[in-house]
């Protein structure tokens, strides 16, 4: 009897309490998915169409409090389902082979606990997936967010053999309490054996780098990304990868200050004492203070942070095109305050790279989808199988 009670006690203490906020090791397994009903999953040796898309957890241009000028947090189920159906339809029409997704909810109060990875697998011709949380907590006691599980995902027509979640640095410009409840961004690295080329393994790599850090956290994220890609490139017989994501970094030579155009009506910067200050009103050298997420020159080298990627690998949208308006991939939902002056896209934050080669002319920034998210998908076809 005493033994039973002891065992019960240990089980109670150790077994039933998952962490309130989930933290991750530097490297851990991603969560694997597959579609309830699979389409034909045989690779036929043609080119591989790759898409990256930050889908903003299916809330489209909803005035969410966190990244636009809205005050709302929880969208209604019907609208979310409609948005997700539109995203699924678009992926289906694109006939994407590999999709790198950012900001996907799998069990979040704000999106009705819809498992969006499973939904997309079940409503597209994609069959397999892997998912890595960047924000997982039983309850976020702020702004009514509540329970959250959001992160990155890779979807594929072909089986994913292994998928690794690679932890990125936490922001250093937050207090301990805020950091505890805040995002833990990551890279997912997935191995897709069906696309192995001879002795070269094939990987898909997905990243969502920090958006709002004002210190050099973004530099650490990009450094880790470059390191991860270099390891694949140097591994085995020079393994192949396709990669991309929401890098939250503008290409070299881009405009880097969006503070005033992203500013909400009447919005002020708040200092550490909650004093309200106009953006760009203090620092004569940099024009600070700046709006978090809208300024891309917070530290030395930030404006050239993507140069190593563009130099080392083939970019779907190359250096000659990346600052052209037709390849802008993002505008915050601030643009919807006034429909007549809406800015649908005004900067490029989302990129695709490979250490192989993209099929010339296959690259596309899908700006027609601007109503489905505050980021636009980028796609390109990888030359593979001797093409």
């Amino acid at each position: 009897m005493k033994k039973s009670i002891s065992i019960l006690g240990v089980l109670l203490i150790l077994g039933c309490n998952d962490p309130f906020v989930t933290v991750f090791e530097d490297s851990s397994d991603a969560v694997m998915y597959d579609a309830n009903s699979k389409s034909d999953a045989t690779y036929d040796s043609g080119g591989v169409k790759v898409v990256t898309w930050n889908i903003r957890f299916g809330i489209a241009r909803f005035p969410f409090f966190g990244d636009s000028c809205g005050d709302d947090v929880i969208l209604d189920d019907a609208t979310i389902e409609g948005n997700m159906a539109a995203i699924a339809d678009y992926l289906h029409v694109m006939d994407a082979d590999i999709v790198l997704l950012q900001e996907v909810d799998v069990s979040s109060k704000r999106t009705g606990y819809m498992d969006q990875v499973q939904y997309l697998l079940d409503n597209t011709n994609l069959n397999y997936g892997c998912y890595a949380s960047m924000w997982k907590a039983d309850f976020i006691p702020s702004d009514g967010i509540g329970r959250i599980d959001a992160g990155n995902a890779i979807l594929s027509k072909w089986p994913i053999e292994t998928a690794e979640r690679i932890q990125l640095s936490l922001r250093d410009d937050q207090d301990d309490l805020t950091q505890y409840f805040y995002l833990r961004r990551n890279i997912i690295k997935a191995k897709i054996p069906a696309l192995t080329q001879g002795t070269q393994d094939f990987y898909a790599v997905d990243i969502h780098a920090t958006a709002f850090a004002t210190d050099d956290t973004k530099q650490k994220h990009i450094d880790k990304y470059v390191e991860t890609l270099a390891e694949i490139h140097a591994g085995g017989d020079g393994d192949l990868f396709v990669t991309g994501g929401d890098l939250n970094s503008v290409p070299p030579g881009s405009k880097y200050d969006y503070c005033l155009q992203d500013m909400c009506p009447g919005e002020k910067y708040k200092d550490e004492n909650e004093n309200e200050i106009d953006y760009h009103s203090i620092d004569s050298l940099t024009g600070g203070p700046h709006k978090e997420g809208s300024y891309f020159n917070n530290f030395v080298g930030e404006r050239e942070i993507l140069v190593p990627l563009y130099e080392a690998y083939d970019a779907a949208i190359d250096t000659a095109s990346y600052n052209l308006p037709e390849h802008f991939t993002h505008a915050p939902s601030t643009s919807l305050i006034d429909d007549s002056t809406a800015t649908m896209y005004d900067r490029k934050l989302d990129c695709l790279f490979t250490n192989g080669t993209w099929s010339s002319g296959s690259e596309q920034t899908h700006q027609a989808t601007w109503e489905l998210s505050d980021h636009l998908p980028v796609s390109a076809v990888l030359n593979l199988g001797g093409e």
Partner: protein
Amino acid sequence: MKKIIFYFILTSLVFGETKKWDAHSAYLLPQKRWEMGLFQPFRYGYSESIEYSVHPLWFFVMPNLSIKKSQSDFAGFTSASQYKMVYPTPFLNMIAKEGTMGIIAPEFRMPPMLGLSASWLMSKTIFPFVSPYSLIGLDLTLKVGLDLGVTFGDLDTRSTIDIPLVYHRLGVYYNKWGIHTGLDVQKNISEKIGVLVDFDLRLLPGLGEVQIDPDASKLMGEYSLEHKFLLIWNKSENFRVLTGYKFVMGEYPYGSDMRLLPYIPMAETWVPIIEFQWARKKR
């Protein structure tokens, strides 16, 4: 003689059995005795047949009142009925806000809501035997009751607070009604030390049918089971300390979940309940 028997029966009907430190049982507090704890309501034995209780700290943001009334013995059990009333709207609207401690999303305004609850309590000492210092046995309490959630306006189903202990208590407002039942066992293992074990089941029948969109599993979560174990040190009849745990498992909009409480998030660990309770008798 008949008059004496009649008087005895009548008295037992009107005046229930009283007992100290037995908040969850059918026993009422002795007249003019009050008891309160850090996390327990203030209870007052108004008469031999009526006991009031109120959560004083919550009262100003969530007005509440409970009345326990003794009833005639039933099947050998001391019996009582308990009626609770709570008005949670002011507090819920306080936490429906932006920023830290915004537990409910700021876009929601909670309408006036009234929670009503009626319970039937039955208590009995089983396996009794007399020790040199007191009657020792198992104090068993069974309870069952009906909960009603009356709302005066539109209550958005997205405004639920989806955490253990809270979800099913507030779920009655979304489901309009619920059932609760439970079992308490208390035993003195020495003159000063006792243990309390309880199990409570809350049901929100048909909650799944209330949801807006069945495919999105919005308002799922028809049951929760709570269990508590407390070790009690009775320093005197006016002060005692309790420690132990509370375990809760149930179904929520996101699926099944279980948790051992209290839980300290940042330390990611369970810690024991520490509860102090005081009592006095009003002169």
